[in-house]
């Protein structure tokens, strides 16, 4: 189906057909990574600005490579050491960037809604690369692409998402995407890290890892941020790792033998995943990373890939 949106902000607003368009487009672009000359001219002459307020080498680099492989000009605004560090407001920065007429702005920010705000302010396309705990649509898309490659289909699959759901934009985006494609999602973690009314998003809830990972096709483990320790949310990393960390023993005892383990990265080995699981045969974590470039190429192409001002 035709892609008609100016921006990619959330998975929540997309319907299943749009999600499949994004996933299928990404799939068809994967072969570019195996070419000797990794370039197609589709976005030649387009300018893409990466506006990253949170430091993130991985995602930013992924978007940068994606843009460059499509022949676009990619500019990185990383905020430390720039005018924002001197106190320029987000809105002023947005207006200054708009004045330079980019075709796409890819934004990552620690505040929920930052991408939505930018999309309202800017006439160009905006891609949400993560806004606070709200959404991270390209992560969900690459997760979906990876799942389809490993399992062959979406409908009817069971997924467990384990960890700090309350603060996770990856969890939110994936819940929306998976639900729309006919998958069953269960979120699990200590109750203090499960947000209230999360079932309203269309998932089930479990409080014990063992209950969540039984009988699912995919286990997605989330990163536990160190900042959580400072709060009153969990008593210690040790307790978290012991009861909600995934070890090989727990995998063998409770999960299906054909299960795949996913993680948005970077992995805290020994906390949410033991090293044997992170680097073991069930893990598809590295596959996720390589799908990321294809997904981001697909997104940039669908948003900016039009040579004429109007269709001929």
């Amino acid at each position, binding site marked *: 189906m035709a892609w008609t949106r100016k921006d990619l902000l959330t998975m929540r607003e997309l319907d299943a057909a749009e999600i499949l368009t994004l996933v299928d487009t990404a799939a068809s672009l994967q072969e570019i990574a195996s070419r000797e000359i990794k370039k197609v001219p589709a976005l030649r002459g387009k300018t893409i600005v990466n506006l990253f307020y949170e430091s993130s080498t991985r995602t930013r680099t992924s978007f940068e490579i994606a843009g460059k492989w499509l022949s676009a000009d990619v500019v990185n605004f990383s905020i430390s050491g720039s005018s924002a560090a001197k106190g320029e407001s987000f809105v002023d920065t947005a207006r200054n960037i708009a004045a330079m007429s980019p075709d796409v702005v890819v934004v990552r*920010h620690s*505040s*929920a*809604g930052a991408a939505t705000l930018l999309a309202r302010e800017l006439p160009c396309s905006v891609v949400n690369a993560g*806004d606070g705990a*709200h959404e991270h649509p390209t992560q969900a898309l690459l997760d979906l692409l990876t799942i389809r490659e490993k399992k062959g289909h979406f409908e009817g699959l069971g997924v467990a998402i384990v960890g700090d759901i309350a603060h996770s934009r990856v969890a*939110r985006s994936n819940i929306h995407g998976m639900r729309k494609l006919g998958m069953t999602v269960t979120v699990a973690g200590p109750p203090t890290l499960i*947000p*209230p*009314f999360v079932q309203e998003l269309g998932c089930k809830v479990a409080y014990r890892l063992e209950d969540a990972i039984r009988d699912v096709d995919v286990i997605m483990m989330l990163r536990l941020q160190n900042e959580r320790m400072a709060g009153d949310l969990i008593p210690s990393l040790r307790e978290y790792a012991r009861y909600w960390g995934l070890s090989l023993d727990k995998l063998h005892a409770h999960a299906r033998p054909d299960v795949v383990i996913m993680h948005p990265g970077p992995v805290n080995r020994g906390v949410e995943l033991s090293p044997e699981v992170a680097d073991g045969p069930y893990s598809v974590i590295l596959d996720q990373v390589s799908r990321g470039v294809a997904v981001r190429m697909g997104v940039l192409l669908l948003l900016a890939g039009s040579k004429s001002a109007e269709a001929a």
Partner: protein
Amino acid sequence: MSLLIRNGRVVDPATSVDAVQDVLIADGVIERTGPRLAAPPGTEVLDATGRVVCPGFIDMHVHLREPGHEYKETIASGTRAAAAGGFTAVCCMANTNPVNDNGAVTDYIRAKARVEGVVRVYPIGAVTRGLRGEVLAELAELAEAGCVAFSDDGRCVMDAALYRRAMEYTLPFGAPVISHAEDHTLSRDAAMHEGVVSTELGLPGEPAAAEEVMVARDILLAELTGARVHIAHISTAGAVRLVRDAKARGVRVSAEVTPHHLLLTEDAVRTFDPNTKMKPPLRTKRDVEALLEALADGTIDCVATDHAPHATSEKEGEYDRAANGILGLETAVPLLLDRLVRPGRLPLPTLVARLSRDPARLLGLPGGSLAPGSPADVTILDLEASVTVDPRRFRSRSRNTPFGGWTLHGGPWRTVVGGAVLAP
């Protein structure tokens, strides 16, 4: 100087009048009301045919921002906004800079209001010095300087022992303490109501319990001390229930509600417009229903806008970093007339009471009535006038409202303060 307001529908709950009558004003005071009054020669006549004539509305929760934050609002601009919104008197909160925690600041505010204000201004003094919640402000001096109530509004006095002492100390003054009920430990980092929407948006939220915990505490402290406590900007069904039960027990508790809590819910936050961000946050439909029911039956005593001007730069940008609060003076009356009175959800005389008789009674203010001898403060409404809210045309210095673009039927027509008809 006399003024005859002729032929309007006079709605005066304080005297149980709802009839077409004339109102005769002389020397800044209501002389009498009645049908077809004779006007002495030289009387200015204001033809109020087809309009509704009410006692001047009083907004008992307003932030005038002066001294210290004049870039957001001043006594001059804020009182003009009040007059434009149909209010003849406002009570201004103490979270200025410097804080109104001593007589000198109260004197400053009252002097400024006398010279530059166009409606009556009644200052509310701080409960604690600097609003820091550590030691009591000089409450007796504040009362003597003219403060009509005490509140740390903007902050909750978290120390229960200290708040108890404040209630005891102010008991003889006859002025209530006004509680900003928010347990700051439960609401830490919150940007909205904790519920379905905050979970979906990934914004940190504060549960209804953050407010209810303190409402319960303040009711119990009022019970302990015998003091009068007034709950500012009540917003949850649970808080309403606590107030209703306490009143039934005879506790001297009262409550106010803002127009925005009666009309908007947490769903408004989905746009991430910072003009939907305030304390307490917008709650759920269930809470809105409970608030409306309580306003109708008197469990909630009055409407107060919590008019909170902020510069545009403070109310655009990232939601979680935006300042809390929205304007209220220039939108309250049209909103309530259009969305509550017109569809029959609240009778007009009840609304008039909640905006005049009841706030006056709570704070012991002159006014709130058109009985002879009352100050000649009159709010005249036009129930038919249609307006589309345009923040650029506000008298306020600020523009932070979520109601821009709303088309509303009904609103203030003329505001009369001390017998002088204020320019619209």
